[in-house]
């Protein structure tokens, strides 16, 4: 009975996702023209970068065993807000970015607060907030679009350093910080403990309310970041940013070894999951498949991810008789 099961399994999971990424990339290289073109790879890199951060945002909430259904709205609202700050109110880029990040964090904090204080089913709270946040932003901006953004800001989305998109570097930086946070700091352990069993965590002396607030706040921060980066990449801001991100936000971490019920996450897995998702969608585009079918495809991917998660769980929790 001596198995270091979880670590082994996570390694296996990551190995299999990596293999899948390679296999599909090779297939696409052979079957399509343009997959390996500089333009495509550059674009793909940027997509992966942002998708990964979206995945990180959901990962933070999955770690405590909950879902952030308001992720898309948080991203859209923060992106709009930051753009408005720069374009409408002429606030310097750096300051606007900091304020934007804070806004994202606050949106997440409010969500966590509602969950902790009201005891209402977290699904529904995040579901309602998705509408509420979007609604507030709609009312505030009257659905305007901001497309006159400072060049410095747009550079974040478009520029590269030695052919590596700045976006990608940002994502790697975030990944490193997140990894340290979850694996090497006490609070990371406490978050995972809370995800494994909230009551046991409480009785171990962990301040679980604070942990939940922290997880949601960081999720909001990351969602906001993703929204801002997407705006930078597109060169314009509209409220629809983030509205399509929900499924991918789950699929990426879950394909990448994060467990849905909480207690176990994998940051590197989330990046690989994001890669897998982005490459597959890129493939569909290159194969000239009608974009209307993408939705269906995403749904099937999520179902697959869900099945993988269940298989994983059944290996892990083999109870003794």
């Amino acid at each position, binding site marked *: 009975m001596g198995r270091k099961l979880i670590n082994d399994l996570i390694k296996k999971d990551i190995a299999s996702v990596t293999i899948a990424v390679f296999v599909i990339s090779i297939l696409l290289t052979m079957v399509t023209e343009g997959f390996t073109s500089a333009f495509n790879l550059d674009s793909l890199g940027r997509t992966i970068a942002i998708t990964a951060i979206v995945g990180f945002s959901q990962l933070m909430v999955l770690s405590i065993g909950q879902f952030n259904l308001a992720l898309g709205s948080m991203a859209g609202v923060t992106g709009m807000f930051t753009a408005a700050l720069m374009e409408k109110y002429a606030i310097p880029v750096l300051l606007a970015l900091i304020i934007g990040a804070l806004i994202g964090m606050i949106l997440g904090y409010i969500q966590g607060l509602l969950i902790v204080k009201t005891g209402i089913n977290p699904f529904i709270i995040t*579901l309602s907030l998705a509408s509420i946040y979007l609604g507030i932003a*709609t009312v505030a901006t009257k659905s305007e679009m901001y497309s006159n953004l400072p060049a410095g800001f747009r550079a974040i989305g478009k520029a590269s350093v030695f052919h590596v998109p700045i976006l990608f570097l940002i994502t790697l930086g975030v990944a490193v910080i997140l990894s340290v946070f979850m694996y090497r700091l006490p609070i990371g352990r406490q978050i995972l403990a809370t995800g494994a069993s909230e009551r046991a965590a409480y009785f171990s002396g962990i301040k679980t309310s604070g942990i939940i607030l922290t997880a949601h706040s960081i999720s909001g921060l990351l969602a906001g970041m993703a929204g801002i980066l997407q705006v930078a990449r597109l060169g314009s801001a509209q409220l629809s940013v983030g509205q399509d991100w929900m499924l991918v936000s789950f699929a990426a971490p879950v394909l990448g070894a994060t467990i849905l019920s909480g207690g176990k996450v994998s940051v590197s897995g989330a990046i690989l999951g994001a890669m897998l998702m982005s490459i597959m969608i890129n493939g569909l585009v290159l194969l000239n498949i*009608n974009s*209307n079918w993408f939705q269906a495809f995403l749904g099937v991917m999520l179902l697959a991810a869900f099945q993988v998660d269940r298989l994983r769980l059944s290996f892990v929790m083999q109870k003794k008789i």
Partner: protein
Amino acid sequence: MSTLTKAPSKNKMLLENIKRSSNFSVGGVIILLMVILWVMKPDFFSQANFNVIAKIVSITALVGLSQMIILAGGGMNVSVGAIGGLVGIVTGGMMDVLGFPVVIAIVVGLATGMLCGVINGLIIAKSGSSGVSSFLTTLATASVFTGLNLGITKATPFYNLPETFKYIGSGSILSIPILLWVMLIVIVIFGMGFKYTSLGRQILAVGGNVKAAELSGILVGRITVISHLLSGLVAGIAAVLLVARLGSAQPDVGSDWMLFSFAAPLIGGTRLAGGKINATGTVLGAIVLVLISNGMVHLNIDVYWMNLIQGLIILAAVAIDRIRTINAERMGVRKSEY
């Protein structure tokens, strides 16, 4: 032994009171809303508008019923709208593009709804029928169904629908819209079904305590599939009625159904956690929702506020559900003395 001895009739009255109070209080809210609207805009209650409201309520109530069936079993169906959309375009397409007669088109449409439901049910049953699995599965299948919808229609509606079909949406019998008749019949069937049929009780048993249900020999997987089949069917009925009313099969039918599908039953007394439903309440809940949203349109409130208000409504509905649940627990967890 601890004493909770009351003569049966008194207990019966007690239970009746509780049930009455839920429909009672929602009814009160409805009256309040109507008064407010009447004061602010008296022509809200014109015959024409009443007619419109009745039709919207019919569809909303059916959407709520579709969700209620799944809530009864302790699950969630996030794909209610997606199924509706797919059924709508299949029905429309059969008449417009393939030229099938109305009856056949409707049958095929409803069959599509049931098939979608069965797919949901099978996947969820295979994944252990938990609440989380129903949420995630239907989240995914919602995308798949919507994707199929868009893929087939390429986002363009089917406009060419037979007059007989459109009559369903516009006609009345005994000055009551056909839509309303259909809704009432369906609601009564399901309301009675949950109370008086073995299947209905089995679904509620699964929602109340899945382990107890299993131990009593209930086949939870089978019940899951059947309840999702019924949910898909009802969502399909709602879609067919909506398409008839609109006069064209729009691919975006159902795109805004999700929040209301939860809000109507929850306001009406159905428990989010499962095991308890209130069919009449779902209709009352639908009335509340339609009064609010239709009222906002008449009061010229910006369409921009819609999202916000909808989100707040669902939050309120769940808060009410939570308060009700806490009250029910408080009603008497009486520990006997040593």
